[in-house]
């Protein structure tokens, strides 16, 4: 069961990451990046690394998304 979940999560993360990279509107790609962060939190949890999962959740998808969204606000991007 674990292998199946890992496979599905990895496929999901790669698809979300690829669409985040080729997305035209930057705000959408930041939100898709949060999806990648969420996916990697699930994977770290499956890999029995709770500390890393918590750090990735708080910093990887939390504060990084804040930084990117604030940057978009300062760069006057069409949000």
């Amino acid at each position, binding site marked *: *069961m*674990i*292998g*199946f979940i*890992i*496979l599905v999560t*990895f*496929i999901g*993360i*790669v698809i979300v*990451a*690829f669409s*985040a*990279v080729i997305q035209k509107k*930057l705000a959408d*790609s*930041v939100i898709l*990046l949060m999806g*990648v*962060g969420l996916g*990697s939190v699930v*994977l*770290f949890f499956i*890999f*029995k*690394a*709770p*500390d*890393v999962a918590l*750090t*990735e959740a708080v*910093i*990887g998808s939390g*504060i*990084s998304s804040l*930084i*990117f969204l*604030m*940057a*978009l606000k*300062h*760069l006057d*991007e069409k949000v």
Partner: protein
Amino acid sequence: MFEFLNQPEVIKIIVTIGSMALFFVGLFGLLTRKHIIKIFMSIAIMESSLFLFFIGLTFNTNFIAPILDNTHVNISNMNDPIPHAMILTAIVIGMAVLALGVSFAIEYYKLTGKTNIDEMNEMKH
């Protein structure tokens, strides 16, 4: 039908292929995207792919997380804590460098109004 997926070797292969695919997406974004924030995002994707690759290959499915509760469970079937400590530090360092890079990009945009990496040539003239 999905039982064969649970063997450790198969999981290691899935993790390698998956994280290298994510690395490919990040590398593709780095090489082709022009907007400075997109480039920082691709670097963030490359970094998280490496962390998944590293933890994915060093974890053992039937071991438990390296947290002892007070029943003093024997230490033999515990996952190796060193990669967790390394990745923990690397995530925070990656975020600190990204935050600094974004502040450079903001200040550069305020002065010159450029966000496209190809247009950034103040030095050529």
